[in-house]
């Protein structure tokens, strides 16, 4: 098996079809465990009361919003440098899921901010840069569909994704670089400032979100492959599965 075996759309189509259900199941199991630990087992927070439980959605969504963008930009860079079709298709498949997580992070942040800070929204550096991320995703999706020739859409959107990557360190370090209303990270390389049960729930939810993102993008990339390759011999010979 050579290195480029799975970079052929036809083999990857079949592989994705086999893997996606497994990742969906993993996501469901991890989410069930995370919700149980987070909503049933985890203790009430000393300062914020019950409302802190928003972190079990908010933090994984925010992490995934950045991580998916990074992966998408990597695929975009591969699509541009190696002119590989599958990389561009993967970037396309990731964008809507990334946008969804970004939206959820912003939304849950608003409904967390209201009871804790006293406001739904402030224009501080962390929140503004996360909103920019949402518009980068939307711009990526729009650009990739804006051309009749899909490969041109690939190139334009890939370029945008690479430029937009400067926003990621801005989001992540905004709470250190500038005065923000948003608090610093609870989890650092040096350790976490979080009770262990709360941390367990948050990590379970993060892995659930991760598995879900993989499953959703695998399903989506299959649709993208089918649409793009519908004139190819292998698609015509494909039994409807």
């Amino acid at each position: 098996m050579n290195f480029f075996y799975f970079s052929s759309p036809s083999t990857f189509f079949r592989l994705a079809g086999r893997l996606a259900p497994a990742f969906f199941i993993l996501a469901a199991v991890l989410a069930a465990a995370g919700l149980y630990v987070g909503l049933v087992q985890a203790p009430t927070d000393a300062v914020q009361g019950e409302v802190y439980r928003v972190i079990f959605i908010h933090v994984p969504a925010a992490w995934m919003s950045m991580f998916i963008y990074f992966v998408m930009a990597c695929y975009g860079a591969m699509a541009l440098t190696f002119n590989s079709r599958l990389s561009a298709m993967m970037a396309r498949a990731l964008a809507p899921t990334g946008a969804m997580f970004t939206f959820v992070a912003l939304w849950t942040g608003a409904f967390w901010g209201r009871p804790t800070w006293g406001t739904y929204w402030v224009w501080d550096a962390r929140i503004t840069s996360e909103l920019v991320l949402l518009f980068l995703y939307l711009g990526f999706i729009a650009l990739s569909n804006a051309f009749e020739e899909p490969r041109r859409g690939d190139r334009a959107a890939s370029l945008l994704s690479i430029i937009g990557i400067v926003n990621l360190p801005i989001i992540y370090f905004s709470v250190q670089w500038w005065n923000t209303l948003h608090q610093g990270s609870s989890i650092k390389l040096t350790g976490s400032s979080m009770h262990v049960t709360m941390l367990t729930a948050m990590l379970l939810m993060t892995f659930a979100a991760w598995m879900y993102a993989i499953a959703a993008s695998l399903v989506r990339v299959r649709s993208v492959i089918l649409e793009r390759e519908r004139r190819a011999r292998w698609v015509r010979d494909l039994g409807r599965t």
Partner: protein
Amino acid sequence: MKPRTKRAAWIMAGIAALGVAVALVLNAFQSNLVFFFTPTQVAANEAPRDRAFRIGGLVEAGSLARDSDALTVRFKVTDTARTIPVVYTGILPDLFKEGKGVVAQGKLGPDGVFRASEILAKHDENYMPPAAADALKKAGHPMDKGAFAGQKTEKKS
């Protein structure tokens, strides 16, 4: 929808999304990167004199006082080096407490009193059950400082 109108719609959507992103970035660079000023920065005249701005710090322990109308509160915001007296009329957020982080928007009067129009609580990155928080407090661990330690004076421990 015809393919051409569809494409035009996507192009418009793309331009709109990128336009909003760029506008947000420019706006942020103009005013919002500094979300608040610390009392030390205010003392050094780094904060704007003529327009409203935000100050951030800890509510100094023992400084909170209510006027007789029960809606006007006075307290001091400190970054442990400098303090600014603040007066505010209105409802305080739930997490507003002495010794906790706060961000106040308003104007600095000529008398040096900050007249706040909006008060936001700033919470820290610590999450723990009440029992653990009590234990920390008894041990004399200043967990409340976390709200601002994350910012200017990153703990190097």
